[in-house]
């Protein structure tokens, strides 16, 4: 955190000054470790073993916060009898070895089918489940026809029933003993126990523990399950929805949170509404039936979606045409970025917009990325600097090796300069869901324009070109609401008008104040329901800047947090079942008996006047179906899920699988790696075999404080480049001895993809680990470099292959294997032969560009 989010880290340091214990669990000793109370080094990719070990410790030692667990979680609910745990084998029931996918029907609770609040939805259309399982990667299969029946599952509030979630969980993690954790992770038993004691002693009524993670948890083939494991632990310890608790994702880009909220992601519509999959005879209602829960706040998905459709297609969206629901294109599988690149290489897709993104450096398997771009008809790059992704046809690594020739690359490239953050107004959504409005300070120079300008005018041009078209496929374009007011000589669209559209309007054209005002009858509009309220009262709430010193510590008047300006989600859980704070120290939101409403430091994430004693009547739906203790209001049953009967593609409980490229066998289960992971098996994406002697070392990629991701915003700046001027690898003295690496000399790193060179930093901060009988070396690789800019070097990401998490299709880039040798890498075609010789030795099929 100190490395990549230094200013956020001030609060950690402040907590530390007030007596908090800071524990840093990281394979590397970083600048965070340097000021932590305890640094726990361990093997990259072993996080679930570690977290599972902590869960096991909590359960076997009875350290869970029992009142919290019984009040707010599904611990007491019984899992269906069909469920079979992963156990020694490491595979849950429902796995289909042929398709490599799970059918989650056997994971269901006893007597109830619950819709997930996120993740793998659209499971519920009976006649389509087999088709789904066969060829949609998004859907892990369907379940039975009782899908819509909201019913309470069987439960045992004593938590003793062998099939209750608590016991299932306990059994699942029983094998994750401290000794097992020590063996798998390479950390000492005492070290593990120190962490276990620290977090359990620091959780409960009086104290809370927070977990903070970044892409070190998400860049794995089991990434989603890493986060699940942490959420199970935090829920058991009662650390969710409470001040000083939570699982905090430190996101790495100014508005990457916003990019998921208003997603430029293929599988989502704004506000986490799933994109519709292709089905026979699907209409709006059947989509909602399949994707939306009937209870909890997702029960209003109809209002959110209809308002969205109204925002996009205005008067053309009518009850008669299902509010233009058919205008939305349909998914049939994985169209994530790596699949797109595969299709580019296969010449199935022809054009590509790169908008402030530099995949030639920043994405796993750079060769694959560049090869994709070289096979396009046209490429539009919008950036401030001449990044590698714009100039790959000229100076990419494949030009040097002769794999590609400039004269043979047919890609037409448009480089359009873009405006920077001072040259346009708009909102970023930061890592804590806070929208902050930036005001334009200066006009962009030359041809530089904002993305708002570019896409607005591109849309206008396209609509002009199609004007008068009678082709049905052009209706969505021609009916689109696309008339934003513009200003200035460049006709810049007014970003406030866009934000206002996102916020939404009622039938009279008034700004909506809350998503609870949204209706499914077409009388309201709103582009992203979770952002509704950001333009409450016609005021740009994201532009509020009451100084921090002039308001409470929660600072509700700085910017605007979704939803409804709540700063901590599910904060109803900061009070006990009766609505009283768990402790004075940790009071945050509580039930005020006198006024008959929830109150506190934050805006309650709960219906304001629903008393703790409220119990839903039979047949209640949406929020009415949630009781006064159901704090997790987006969940269909209002409970935090210790066991996830649905929503995940790779199991209801996190299970330790080795990274695909691992130097060791899975010591906890027979199954070596995630059986449901996604591969791209192509010559340009060869994988190192597990436990390969040819590629014996683990490497991990990361950022440095002094640079920013793929370097487009840092490698071109002198003040930053001089601080970290060259690409380097970090190795332990032991590895340096083993491979004759010289400090400040060059090393060549080799994987089945390619070989790259880096300067060597020999440092005691890298530690070899003992895993079983093996000594495992880990190599650190900051990934910021490319061929352009002031500070140059080989891209570390070129070393990586692409293999993905099945839930979110994110690549495993935080751990892989390689070899390392002293000296510089071969140049030109010799590099290809060098890499091929390694593949031969490792028994990997021939690779490269074929």
């Amino acid at each position: 955190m100190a490395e990549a989010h230094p200013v956020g880290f001030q609060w950690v340091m402040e907590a530390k000054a007030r007596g908090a214990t800071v524990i840093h669990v990281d394979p590397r000793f970083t600048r965070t470790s340097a000021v932590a109370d305890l640094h726990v080094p361990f093997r990259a990719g072993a996080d679930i073993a570690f977290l599972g070990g902590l869960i096991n410790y909590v359960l076997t030692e009875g350290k869970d916060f029992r009142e919290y667990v019984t009040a707010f979680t599904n611990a007491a609910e019984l899992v269906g009898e069909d469920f079979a745990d992963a156990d020694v084998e490491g595979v849950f029931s429902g796995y289909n070895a042929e398709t490599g996918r799970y059918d989650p029907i056997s994971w269901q609770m006893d007597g109830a089918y619950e819709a997930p609040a996120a993740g793998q939805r659209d499971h519920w259309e009976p006649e389509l489940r087999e088709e789904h399982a066969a060829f949609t990667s998004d859907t892990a299969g369907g379940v039975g026809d009782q899908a819509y029946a909201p019913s309470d599952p069987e439960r045992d509030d004593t938590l003793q029933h062998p099939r209750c979630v608590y016991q299932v969980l306990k059994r699942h993690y029983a094998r994750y003993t401290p000794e097992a954790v020590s063996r798998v992770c390479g950390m000492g038993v005492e070290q593990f126990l120190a962490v276990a004691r620290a977090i359990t002693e620091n959780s409960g009524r009086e104290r809370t523990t927070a977990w903070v993670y970044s892409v070190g948890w998400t860049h794995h083939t089991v990434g989603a399950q890493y986060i699940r494991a942490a959420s199970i632990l935090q829920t058991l310890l009662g650390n969710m929805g409470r001040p000083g608790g939570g699982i905090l994702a430190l996101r790495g880009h100014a508005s990457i949170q916003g990019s998921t909220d208003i997603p430029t992601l293929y599988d989502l519509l704004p506000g986490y509404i799933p994109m519709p999959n292709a089905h026979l005879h699907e209409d709006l209602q059947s989509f909602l039936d399949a994707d939306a829960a009937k209870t909890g706040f997702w029960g209003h998905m109809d209002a959110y979606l209809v308002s969205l459709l109204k925002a996009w297609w205005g008067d053309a969206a009518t009850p008669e045409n299902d509010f233009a629901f058919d205008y939305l294109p349909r998914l049939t599988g994985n169209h994530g970025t790596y699949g797109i690149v595969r299709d580019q290489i296969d010449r199935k897709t022809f054009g590509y917009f790169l908008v402030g993104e530099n995949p030639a450096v920043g994405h796993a398997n750079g060769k694959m990325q560049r090869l994709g771009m070289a096979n396009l008809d046209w490429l539009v790059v919008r950036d401030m600097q001449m990044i590698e992704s714009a100039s790959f046809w000229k100076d990419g690594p494949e030009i040097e090796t002769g794999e590609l020739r400039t004269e043979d690359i047919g890609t037409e490239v448009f480089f359009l300069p873009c405006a920077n953050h001072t040259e346009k107004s708009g909102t970023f959504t930061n890592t804590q869901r806070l929208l902050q409005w930036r005001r334009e300070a200066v006009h962009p120079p030359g041809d530089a324009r904002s993305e708002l300008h570019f896409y607005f005018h591109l849309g206008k041009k396209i609509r002009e070109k199609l004007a008068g078209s009678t082709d049905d496929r052009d209706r969505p374009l021609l009916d689109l609401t696309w008339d934003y007011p513009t200003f200035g000589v460049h006709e810049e669209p007014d970003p406030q008008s866009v934000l206002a559209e996102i916020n939404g309007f009622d039938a009279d054209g008034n700004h909506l104040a809350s998503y609870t005002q949204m209706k499914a009858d077409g009388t309201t509009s709103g582009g992203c329901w979770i952002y509704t309220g950001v333009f409450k009262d016609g005021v740009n709430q994201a532009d509020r800047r009451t100084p921090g010193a002039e308001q409470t510590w929660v600072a509700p008047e700085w910017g605007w947090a979704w939803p409804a300006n709540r700063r901590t989600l599910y904060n109803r859980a900061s009070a006990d079942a009766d609505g009283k704070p768990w402790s004075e120290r940790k009071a945050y939101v509580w039930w005020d008996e006198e006024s008959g409403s929830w109150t506190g430091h934050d805006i309650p994430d709960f219906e304001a006047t629903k008393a703790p004693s409220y119990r839903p009547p039979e047949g209640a739906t949406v929020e009415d179906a949630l009781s006064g203790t159901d704090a997790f209001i987006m969940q269909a049953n209002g409970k935090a899920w210790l066991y996830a009967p649905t929503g995940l593609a790779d199991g209801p409980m996190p299970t330790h699988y080795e990274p695909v490229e691992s130097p060791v066998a899975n010591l906890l289960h027979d199954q070596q790696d995630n059986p449901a992971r996604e591969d791209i098996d192509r010559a340009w994406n060869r994988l190192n075999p597990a436990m390969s002697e040819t590629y014996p070392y683990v490497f991990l990629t990361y950022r440095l404080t002094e640079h920013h991701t793929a370097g487009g915003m840092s490698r071109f700046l002198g003040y930053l480049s001089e601080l970290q001027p060259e690409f380097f690898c970090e190795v332990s003295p032991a590895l340096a001895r083993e491979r004759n690496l010289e400090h400040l000399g060059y090393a060549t790193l080799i994987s089945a993809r390619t070989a790259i060179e880096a300067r060597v930093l020999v440092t005691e901060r890298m530690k070899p680990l003992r895993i079983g009988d093996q000594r495992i070396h880990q190599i650190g690789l900051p990934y910021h470099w490319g061929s352009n800019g002031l500070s140059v070097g080989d891209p570390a990401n070129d070393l990586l292959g692409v293999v993905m998490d099945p839930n979110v299709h994110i690549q495993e880039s935080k751990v892989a294997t390689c070899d390392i040798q002293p000296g510089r890498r071969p140049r030109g075609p010799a590099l290809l032969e060098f890499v091929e010789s390694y593949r031969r030795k490792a028994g990997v099929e021939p690779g490269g560009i074929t």
Partner: protein
Amino acid sequence: MGVRTWLGEWPMFRQATGSDPLGRGAAVQSPRTRALEPRTREADEVVKSVCPYCAVGCGQNIYVRDGRVTQIEGDPDSPISRGRLCPKGSASTSLVTSPTRVTTVKYRRPYGTEWEDLDLDTALDMIADRVLDARRRGWQDTDDQGRVLRRTLGFSSLGGATLDNEENYLIKKLFMALGAIQVENQARI
């Protein structure tokens, strides 16, 4: 400048006549030093902004003079950052005033070996044509089972996560209307 003034500005004279005989402070201060003031004081306006690097969302104050950014500093009002910035955030002035920044359209024709210049409007028009062409070529009305797809796979987009919400919104909206499902983002990476 009269002799008196000149003499009065001569540090030796001030050494001899003033309170700084050793010539270490007040006596040797130059007129230019005396007139020194922070360049932020000359700013025409101070614009509230947010750091464009990571997602902590530190507040920034942008100092502008004559339509140019002269300084970017942390916004002390921000309850998130309290006026502080990391090295990248502190380099924001360099970022926005970078001399290597490309500010005109560059065009590489198919099989070309060099960049060419292109008018922005022409570029936009060419891109619109290419979008429509790729959309047509990649169009799918239904799949082989007759399921309605109503989409195109002809082109795709990959956005960085430093885009504004409003920008992402327009991208998503336009692509959905085009039937283009392949919209992706750094958030996937």
